[in-house]
């Protein structure tokens, strides 16, 4: 589904990503973790072309992301993305947030889009909030709407960029629950997160990044059982020790 080979990116002299290669198969759930500044958010944003990269190749469902002839909006419409800061559109109601992509990009009718949007809203447990505006919802609720918005486009895979990092602790689980459910339904997912409980529960593989490199790309059992790199061992001991 997603194939990355030797992806490198730099801002001027500063190397952000170095030779990153990995593959995400259909239905797989990959958790990307690593210390801050390790390039994990940048890596995931390269997948739908939100961040350009200078060398290497990324293909999503056979379409090359970096190629100049690629219709990026068309590709992005098929790849759902959830952001750290939700990024709901504050001037639109929840229903409008859920329908704008469907109407403008997928050319669905307003009625059809609304029906699909409300169904998804119900699925993330927020049916009652349809008429409200993002500013009237809690962070956890906004993030669930953001997930529903991404799903409204019928994506072939989902990218999560630290979806729970901006949330108050008591709201983390309501968002993770939705993500776990998605994983169980067989959605292909690439999640940048520090939620190791989530990784243990649903991840197929864990990618550990440090200083722009993929240091470890292992199955869940291997990663939590016997991480090979010292850097990953240190990282795990730090975040699992309390």
């Amino acid at each position, binding site marked *: 589904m997603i194939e990355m080979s030797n992806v490198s990116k730099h801002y001027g002299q500063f190397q952000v990503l170095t030779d990153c290669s990995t593959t995400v198969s259909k239905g797989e759930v990959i958790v990307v973790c690593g210390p801050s500044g390790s390039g994990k958010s940048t890596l995931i944003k390269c997948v739908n072309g939100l961040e350009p990269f200078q060398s290497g190749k990324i293909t999503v469902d056979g379409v090359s992301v970096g190629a100049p002839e690629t219709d*990026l*909006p068309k590709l992005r419409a098929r790849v759902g993305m959830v952001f750290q800061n939700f990024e709901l*559109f*504050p*001037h639109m109601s929840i229903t409008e947030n859920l329908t704008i992509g469907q109407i403008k*990009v997928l050319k669905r009718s307003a009625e059809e889009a609304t029906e699909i949007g409300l169904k998804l809203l119900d699925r993330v447990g927020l049916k009652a909030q349809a008429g409200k505006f*993002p*500013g*009237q919802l809690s962070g956890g609720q906004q993030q669930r709407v953001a997930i529903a918005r991404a799903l409204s*486009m019928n994506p072939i895979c989902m990218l999560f960029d630290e979806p729970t990092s901006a949330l108050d602790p008591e709201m983390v689980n309501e968002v993770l629950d939705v993500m776990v459910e998605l994983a169980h339904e067989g959605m292909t997912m690439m999640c940048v997160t520090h939620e190791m409980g989530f990784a243990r529960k649903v991840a197929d593989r864990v990618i550990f990044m440090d200083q722009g490199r993929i240091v470890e790309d292992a199955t869940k059992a291997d990663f939590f059982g016997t991480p090979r790199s010292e850097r990953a061992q240190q990282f795990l001991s730090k975040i699992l020790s309390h």
Partner: protein
Amino acid sequence: MFSTLDLSVIAPSLPFLWTGLQYSLKLTLVAMTGGIILGTFLALCRLSSSRVLAGAATAYVDLMRSIPLVMVILWFFLLIPLMTGNPVGAETSAMLTFTAFEAAYYSEIMRAGIQSVSRGQVAAGDALGLTYRQTMSYIVLPQAFRNMIPVLLTQTIILFQDTSLVYIIGAKDLLKAAEIAGKNYNRPIEMYIFVALCYFVLCISLSLVVKQLQKRVAIVR
């Protein structure tokens, strides 16, 4: 001095002054609408990644903002007939001038407005598969516009006051009407005091509206 004022000349001049005020208001509305549209376009050019577009827009804005408005009014009045071959009249000339001139100021406001919308919002629009044009028209510009309504209206109040400058090319605005009426009755002081009062009342009411709007349009985040 005030004992010699003859305010009785004002009432009979009201219909004539009203036609002047109508033109002033029309000029303000046209220049505001045209200026905001053209200004938004200029702002988008300045923020675009194309160096040619950005450079051209910047040059235009800088040029307009460094020339006194009176001179722009005069130059347009003299240049338009030269370029088009036929005179368009002071009134139309003033409308074109003010639209072109105000666009430079509105574009700076819209540029700040566009930049006030976070990059994350653009990324969210992109990620949904919206094109650049769609992201701009549905996500960025509505928010930019809303954030900037108070500043845009404040600029419009300044614009309304500036429209009085068109009397130098003979366009019949409120000030010109007062001048004519004053000459008619040989009572210029009374007329000038009265139109000053008109400008004052209109501008003060508009700024009160701006204050009210400021409270209303703030987006809950």
